């Protein structure tokens, strides 16, 4: 049971990066369907950076640098995808849905190419530093295993979700960002730089989402590249709806999603039933969407301008 929960949390936190990043992006009014591609590119950037560091250090890895270098590279790779998205939708005024889907297909293609060109052992060797937990965790029984046995990325996901939630709800920065996503014209009239907020939120959000891809490879898969990161990205996009656009609530929601996803491996059931479990996240997302639409509480709705580009001339 404990092992099941630990696995659910590890997988859930991978999703949490994606959903927190996408929530920040969506709060600015950008419906970024490029998240799956962004997570792929993020993961691939991290692997390439880890590999380069491995070569440069001739295999003698410094634990801090082995984590920090891929982490920063991943964030940069994700943010670059956000920059492309913002450039397309804000500056070139391309349709958001089309842009997102293009970035997803592009991201999957690019990441496969990036990873195909490097030796697996050069990046998988960094994985051990990502999964290192506190040394005294194993002496604390079930408590240690359930709460303290994880690698750094798992805790980082939770910290980012909590910080994002505080920034969104308790600071003027967050107030302005939410205003941009709700009504860019109103924000513009109030003197808020809509373009800057949309670029900024999208790049940061994509950077965070990218970390989800890295976490999947380095932590959950223990350093093995697996060609399913894009499907995890879609799960993260669904998770945003499940969390009703609240990163703090997302911590719990992501564990639920994670539990659904890994449940099949811990249950002695046949293949068809396993597929059923993997389907559950999408089913509950649909149900949540139906419920929030039926209740029609203004506070639970997506940002009012989600998916809409803003041009000042259209007053």
């Amino acid at each position, binding site marked *: 049971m404990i092992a099941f929960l630990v696995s659910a949390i590890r997988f859930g936190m991978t999703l949490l990066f994606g959903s927190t990043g996408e929530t920040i992006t969506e709060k600015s009014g950008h419906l970024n369907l490029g998240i799956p591609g962004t997570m792929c590119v993020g993961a691939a950037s991290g692997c390439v950076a880890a590999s380069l560091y491995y070569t440069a250090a001739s295999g003698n890895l410094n634990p801090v640098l082995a984590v920090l270098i891929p982490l920063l590279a991943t964030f940069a790779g994700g943010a670059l995808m956000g920059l492309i998205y913002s450039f397309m939708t804000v500056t070139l005024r391309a349709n958001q849905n089309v842009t997102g889907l293009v970035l997803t297909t592009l991201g999957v293609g690019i990441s496969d190419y990036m990873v195909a060109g490097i030796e697996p052992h050069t990046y998988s060797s960094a994985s051990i530093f990502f999964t290192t937990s506190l040394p005294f965790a194993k002496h604390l029984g079930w408590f240690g295993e359930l709460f303290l046995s994880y690698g750094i990325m798992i805790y980082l996901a939770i910290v980012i979700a909590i910080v994002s939630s505080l920034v969104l709800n*308790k600071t003027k920065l967050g107030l302005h960002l939410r*205003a941009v996503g*709700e*009504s860019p*014209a*109103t*924000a513009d009239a*109030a003197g808020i730089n809509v373009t800057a907020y949309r670029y900024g939120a999208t790049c940061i959000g994509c950077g965070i989402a990218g970390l989800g891809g890295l976490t999947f490879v380095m932590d959950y898969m223990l350093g093995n590249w697996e060609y399913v990161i894009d499907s995890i990205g879609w799960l993260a996009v669904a998770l945003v709806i499940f969390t009703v656009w609240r990163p703090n609530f997302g911590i719990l929601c992501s564990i639920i999603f994670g539990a659904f996803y890994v449940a099949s491996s811990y249950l002695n059931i046949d293949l068809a039933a396993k597929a059923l479990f993997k389907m559950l996240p999408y089913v509950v997302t649909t149900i949540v969407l139906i419920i929030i639409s039926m209740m029609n509480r*203004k506070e639970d709705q997506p940002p009012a301008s989600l998916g809409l580009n803003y041009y000042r001339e259209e007053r």
Partner: protein
Amino acid sequence: MEHAALELRHVTKTFGNVIANNNVNLDLRRGEILALLGENGCGKTTLMNMIAGIYFPDEGEILIGGEPVVITSPKDAFRYGIGMIHQHFKLIDVFSASENIVLGIENGEKYRLSAVNDRVQEIADKYGFHIDPKKKIHTMSVSEKQTVEIVKVLYRGADILILDEPTAVLTPQETEKLFAVLRRMRDDGKSIIIITHKMHEVLSISDRVAVLRKGEHIATVDTATTNENELTEMMIGKKVTLNIDRSEPKNPVSRLTVNHITSIDSDGVHTLDDISFTAYSGEILGVAGIAGSGQRELLESIAGLHHMTEGEILYNDPTSGHMENLRDKTPIQIRELGVRLSFVPEDRLGMGLVGNMDIIDNMMLRSYRRGKSLFLDRKNPKDLAISIINNLEVVTPSASTPVRRLSGGNVQKVLVGREIAASPTVLMAAYPVRGLDINSSYTIYNLLNEQKEKGVAVIFVGEDLDVLLELCDRIMVISGGKISGIVDARTTTKEEIGLLMTKDVSHTASATKEETKR
């Protein structure tokens, strides 16, 4: 002598070929309420938007307290203590009053919502507003939202407040409350410009009145020394002769009888209030009124696109002689009943035509249901498109050019041409000449006259009173969703219509009795 709080000198603003404001001079004193009066499209809002930093004047200068200033953004305007309350509120629904008020303020202070709440309450108490700082906008009434907008500019320390038609959305009681607050702000030394069409409000709230007509400043007068007739005359000007042909109606029969229709919108405002009239065949019935007085709702109700709360619309079917009630029928049901209504909506490209489709496809929007085979019949629509292009002199590279690439006048010709081609018995046209040049306008007038001579009952919603007076047989004036009068276009005067347009009929007994001249 003390400098004026705000002064405009020789301000001119053009949009393309249209002159919105021409050489306007205006001054606003400290501690006064100045009413800005003028017809629709006379440039009042444009002028105010230049002060608020939304537009930038082409020529002329703006002075604050005697010093010339450059205002290029709403932020600049705030810096000079100018705050504008727009007609359409710029508020975020899911935010509380305080969150909306503090939005966009970068004063380096730590962001604490409770402190904002306290300041908001303080301002409200000072001027006698009622506001709950924590209440979410989407749960507020229109009047509460307006209060938030006003507190928003006061919070930013505005000394000059501009209110664009603040009473348009308020009930008489709410208007009284607003005026009490405005007077208190004036006594506190604030300078206020209020844009309004309602003459009795101008007379009751303002210290001085500035009148604009066709983008030009006509005069600024002391409210105490003027009266309604003088202001109306300044506002609408002398009659201009246009030489539009007008024939006598032939064998008029009542075609459309509207009985007591009422419509209430989602905010609880009466957009239509007990409207009754009859449209006759072979005549043009003009509809005059300040924009947003219910014209759109009226036409949409007849066309079956707008839900009425009460009333009925009786249509006298010329082929069968039966009376049909159009109420609560869908536009398609109305067609199936043999009732032919052609409708030219106000928003040409929004509701009338599909911009990305070509002229032929737009013709098909009205005819595709008649098709019998699996594939669409493109031949007839194509012939129709070509005949419209030739007859109405539509300037277009070809019949297969997307209509959004045509100029406004040509788009309008395509739309009116298509509606007329359906050989209607009732033709409704809303602002069909808006934005058109003189020649195109006359083409449209002739088209409407042709329809009238064919025995069509034409309902023409217009904004230019000179045109209404020369084109129409009768003119119905609506004000605030009510009919303030139906007059004979041949004998009435511009002044009479002007007074009816600004007349407040909310308290008077039903002035909607259809006159019985026939």
